[in-house]
């Protein structure tokens, strides 16, 4: 059982953290149902079990910070500020989707909140994060670029190239490894010869540490610390968040490679349930408060589903839109 400790986190922030974890959980569970109902198609990757990571990190960021994530990004998108309606409509392939229906589950984007996807080539977005950091450094912005990726991505060459560049150029980038111990069916032990992931960052002289990714308070604290190191000019930071996905990799995955007992053990540390229990125990929240959060999340997601279902499709005549941009489009 996670031993939550408030430390510097304000009590009212706990409610917000719980609320957001619940919002992700509800969104994801609804996605699973909608996939079964064929309303959502393509690949669908759920974040259930890992909510504390995105939630803790996002709460420690400035709204102006840039965020990049993988194809398992609904939660990150939601907390970055994309309305559930935009996310759901996207997965329904509707024109009101946050990517106009062209991206789907794996490619949520939002320029307004600086959410740079939704990237489906494992490791491919790490160099992008470096470039965004470089642009901020050149412009003198004190924004941080936060890049989420799985532990599986760390075996890709891009990981190595991106960390080296970020460190060489002292860029304001926070690398957030969501170590859920599996890359599809490949366990960390068969993916990395060195399973102490923070050690890898040392190969680039990047400060790095490992954090309990099931403890939303620890996640938030670690991120705050990293962010202030970065905005203080200390260059990139790497954090490994140790977490676990409770569901299969995607809706196609029969999950043959994990011991059900292992899954159960991790479920005992369910970040939403344990944190809610602790908050009640600590009298930070009442049981009714928690129920209200679930209700609100359900209402939010239900409204999004209804809106998505009613939303229009992009006309077929628009198929070739947005392949290249015109000067007029980008200057308007």
């Amino acid at each position, binding site marked *: 059982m996670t031993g939550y400790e408030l430390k510097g986190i304000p009590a009212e922030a706990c409610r917000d953290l719980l609320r957001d974890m619940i919002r992700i959980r509800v969104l994801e569970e609804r996605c699973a149902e909608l996939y079964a109902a064929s309303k959502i*198609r*393509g*690949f669908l990757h759920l974040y259930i079990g890992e909510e504390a990571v995105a939630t803790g990190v996002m709460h420690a960021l400035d709204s102006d910070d840039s965020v990049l994530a993988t194809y398992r990004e609904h939660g990150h998108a939601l907390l970055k500020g994309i309305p559930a309606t935009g996310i759901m409509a996207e997965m329904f*392939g*509707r024109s009101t989707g946050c*990517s106009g*229906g*062209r*991206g*789907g*589950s*794996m*490619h949520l984007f939002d320029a307004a909140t600086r959410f740079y996807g939704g*990237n*489906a*080539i*494992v*490791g*491919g977005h790490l160099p992008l994060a470096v470039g965004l950091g470089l642009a901020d450094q050149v412009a003198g912005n004190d924004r941080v670029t936060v890049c989420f990726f799985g532990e*599986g*991505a760390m*075996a*890709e*060459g891009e990981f190595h190239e991106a960390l080296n560049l970020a460190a060489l150029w002292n860029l304001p980038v926070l690398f957030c490894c969501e170590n859920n111990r599996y*890359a*599809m*069916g*490949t366990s960390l032990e*068969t*993916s*990395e010869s060195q399973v102490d992931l923070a050690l890898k960052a040392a190969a680039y002289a990047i400060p790095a540490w490992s954090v309990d990714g099931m403890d939303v308070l620890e996640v938030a604290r670690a991120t705050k610390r990293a962010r202030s190191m970065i905005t203080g000019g200390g260059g990139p930071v790497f954090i490994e968040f140790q977490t676990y996905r409770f569901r299969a990799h995607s809706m196609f*995955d*029969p999950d*043959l*490679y994990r011991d059900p007992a292992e899954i159960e053990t991790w479920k005992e540390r369910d970040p939403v349930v344990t944190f809610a229990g602790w908050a009640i125990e600590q009298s930070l929240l009442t049981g009714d408060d928690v129920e209200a959060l679930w209700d609100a999340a359900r209402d939010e997601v239900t409204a999004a589903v209804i809106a998505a279902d009613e939303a229009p*499709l*992009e006309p*077929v005549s628009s*198929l*070739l839109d947005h*392949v290249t941009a015109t000067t007029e489009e980008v200057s308007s």
Partner: protein
Amino acid sequence: MTGPEVETTYREAMRDAIREALATDDRVIVLGEDVADYGGTYAVTKGLHEEFGRDRVRNTPLSESGFVGAGIGAALGGLRPIVEIMTVNFSLLALDQIVNTAATLRHMSGGQFHVPLVIRMTTGAGRQLAAQHSHSLEGWYAHVPGLKVIAPATASDARWMLPTALADPNPVILFEHNALYGEHGSIDPVGGPVDITQAAIRRSGNDVSIIAWAGMVHKAMAAAAVLADQGVDAEVIDLRSLRPLDADTLAESVARTHHAVVVDEGWLTAGLNAEIAALITERCFWTLDAPVRRLASAEVPIPYAQHLEEHAIPQVDDIVAAVNRLVRDGV
């Protein structure tokens, strides 16, 4: 050698082929992301690690360049690796190894080395996987001297093209279309390696030659059935081998039908469709009644939304319409 045909699926046919290779040749190993416990992204290698052990059906980390390069090295070292890249989309990460090493080693060593390697990967769109997971880049591979490129479209070819590929002393790229795995077909369980120097005429006809490969063969066949009802007798040619191309079969067919339509799931511009059109035109300029018609995907990163994706990719109706226009109006 032939025996009684049995019903199976493209996926199982492929698996049987791999199983046979592992069982009959010690030098064969299977390498790739999630080929073991997960069973392969498309479940092709499912169960094989239990049969042959994790050393021979070996999971790799996410590192396409690294493990494809390792496959090349292992082939140089005497093994017969079957490397699986989950999809052609990720093969871009390994393209340097394939083009600059696998395809060049023999020539630049003056013929001292050869690279007996099979690289399997899925290709194609149609499953709402969006822009980063829907490429059809067969034409790129078909461009490269030193490689051979094949694309089984039927369960039978899925079963019997792998032995051909494994017997070849060169790097062979084997494309499996993601929409075909569930396709049923009958195979000859004691058939034998497919002659990949020959394109397969899947349907004979006299009015037009429809040339396709992989997923598009099935759409071409469906179109031919519709066209038959409309009084157009289409010949359907399944290329099977994309490098080298069987120019003779194409030329012979078009010389008879005087009309050709190429159907390519990849993008139009500078795709393999262009090569086929150019090749046919060179060989049949004087017998063609109209320019070769190219049907290919719209010039757009494949969108997620189903209706948009459908319109981006050539469909049966598009083929029917194109053939009708070509045969009746000459355009």
